[in-house]
């Protein structure tokens, strides 16, 4: 995960005053077993150290970390800056929420009583918005199997088809960023505008059970946290595997010199679309875990602000480090919690200056800093 064979390799080496035991012994060890350290942190330290409430927050940020990991894949290694990862996060989140909402409605006595009148049980917000029948695209989400299949297939498929079409037309760089940004804006406008079908600004909320299990028991947050952490570690491992495979090398080659790879006979659009789809799938999983833990799917997680925030998670951790993205997300999560509890006004300054500072002074993020300090020779 740390093979930084790229343009940042010729940065100045470590300052002389770093002690040897630190730079020569400790840091390389941190780097080598980074995934194991992360597993220990997520699976042992955090659950032991945090109470119920803080663990819930950690779980929420871990579900955002899925997007950050996807961002490292497409931006750090693929060179594609997508400002619309919130779309896929939102797709996963809303699909899960639709299932949970229908399950809550089916078990709700008042709604069942009205079912005779409407033909089938209608979620409460649809009744408030005088929608008189369950829309056809809500129907399949009554089935858990369909919901799971849709979550695994739909975001990835959409991402693949959309990005393949544009990459094939050689739309890239900032144009792709602007298009994805616009799509994120469109999606949040649509969700807010179609209140009767999507819950509008309020989003979908008020879930009682998930797959027959209550969401209110004291053990639930712990179980969901552990599932999130394991799933996230699995995603990091999967991405690491992809990047270490030959496919990953081709992707890096495309980032650095797309035309040469194309001249060598590769269909570069296919490779780029593939990792874009992988990132979309991972983001959607994050959305699912977010909805399960927070009990909400909301348009405020889809638009341009959350979509761009994902970029800074990845940038702070290090755009070339999958593990770094998780740390970056957690660090920003800690900062956000601390600042919004103590200095409300400073949160936005903080995130704004972080964007500017990281980009200007720390293009490889914290992982890059670590690497520089540890004097690791590259190439």
């Amino acid at each position, binding site marked *: 995960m740390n093979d930084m064979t790229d343009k940042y390799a010729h940065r100045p080496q470590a300052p002389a005053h770093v002690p040897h035991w630190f730079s020569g012994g400790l840091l390389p060890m941190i780097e080598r077993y980074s995934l194991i350290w992360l597993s220990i942190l997520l699976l042992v330290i955090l659950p032991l150290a945090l109470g119920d409430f803080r663990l819930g927050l950690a779980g929420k940020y871990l579900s955002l970390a899925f997007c950050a990991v996807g961002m490292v894949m497409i931006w750090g290694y693929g060179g594609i800056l997508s400002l619309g990862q919130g779309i896929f996060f939102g797709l996963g989140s809303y699909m899960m929420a639709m299932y949970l909402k229908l399950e809550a409605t089916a078990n709700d006595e008042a709604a069942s009583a009205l079912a005779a009148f409407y033909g089938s049980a209608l979620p409460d917000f649809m009744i408030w918005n005088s929608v008189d029948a369950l829309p056809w695209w809500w129907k399949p989400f009554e089935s858990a199997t369909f919901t799971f299949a849709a979550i695994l297939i739909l975001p990835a498929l959409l991402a693949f088809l959309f990005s393949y079409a544009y990459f094939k037309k050689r739309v890239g760089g900032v144009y792709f*960023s602007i298009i994805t940004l*616009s799509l994120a*804006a469109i999606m949040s*406008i649509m969700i807010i505008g179609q209140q009767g079908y999507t819950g509008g600004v309020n989003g979908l909320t008020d879930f009682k059970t998930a797959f027959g299990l209550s969401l209110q028991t004291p053990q639930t947050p712990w179980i969901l946290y552990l599932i999130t952490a394991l799933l996230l570690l699995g995603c990091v491992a999967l991405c690491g595997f992809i990047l270490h495979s030959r496919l990953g090398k081709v992707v890096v080659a495309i980032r650095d010199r797309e035309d040469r790879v194309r001249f060598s006979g590769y269909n570069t659009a296919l490779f780029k679309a593939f990792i874009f789809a992988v990132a979309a799938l991972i983001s959607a999983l994050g959305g699912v875990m977010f909805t399960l833990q927070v009990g909400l799917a909301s348009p405020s997680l889809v638009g341009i602000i959350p979509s761009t925030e994902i970029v800074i998670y990845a*940038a702070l951790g290090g755009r070339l480090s999958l593990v770094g993205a998780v740390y970056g997300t957690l660090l920003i999560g800690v900062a956000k919690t601390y600042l919004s509890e103590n200095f409300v*006004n400073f949160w936005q300054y903080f995130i704004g200056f972080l*964007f500017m500072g990281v980009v200007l002074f720390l*293009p490889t993020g914290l992982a890059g800093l670590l690497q520089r300090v540890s004097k690791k020779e590259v190439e």
Partner: protein
Amino acid sequence: MTFDILVMQIFSGFSLFSVLVLMALGLTIVFGLMGVINMAHGELMAMGSYMTYVTSVVFQRYFPDHMGWYFIIGIGVAFVVTFAFGFLLERCFIRFMYKRPLDTLLATWGLSLVLQQLFRQVFGPKEVTVPTVQWLQGAWKISEGLELPLNRIFIIGLTLVIAAAVFLFLYRSRWGLRIRAVTQNRAMAGAAGINTARVDAVTFALGCGLAGIAGSSFTMLASTGPVSGQQYLVDTFIVVVFGGVESLLGTFLSAFAIGQTQISLEYLTTGSMAKAITLLVVIVLLFLRPNGLFAAKVRR
């Protein structure tokens, strides 16, 4: 009656067109000529709006007799302040990132968040409005049931004047010549004795100043809040990209097409849905013409 509605529709389309052109002109210069993606463009517009607001407050307090003039002065103040801000921004920040367009995008996004919070703390989270000057109140009554608001006519006029001025500046003045020379071939322009760093700063500042004028004229149409700028951002970028980034004419045509489409759709559905559908259509069209309506060479 139906004729009146048609005229009103077309007029609204023109009004939106002028607004889009004003928003996009500055960005066309910054993005098209310099290749800098300025995500804080919306916040510069908001800065222009706030400057006009400040001017109106100053006039109300010190020169209440000359209130009729404040709006003209306000536009000037907005231009000067945003121009100066843009100049400083380029010298202190943007110029270190010319080689990294995607990073510029992120850094200016950070800047936009900082500016929003700054507006929120200086001017308060509530939206502010400026008084409409006497000579822009009311409407031009053509016939019974057909009235065109004066402030919208003024903005259409202002847009045409500004666009003509930008055209003359770029294609008929020494500075414009320098800017185009640097855009086309930076090394050769430098060899011919043009101070390219200075040209960069002036070009960027000019784009920012135009954003200021846009923001200033928007105070006639809507109130200004800390996040007003962000609402313009996506539209502005879409207009510029759809037009073909470095073409003024392209910006005009794309603003016209987007404006008329959106207004026509608003007749059929709600405003926000009309906007979403228009943006979607543009994105699909960008798939067919990835370089926009008018494509030409860009600086590498």
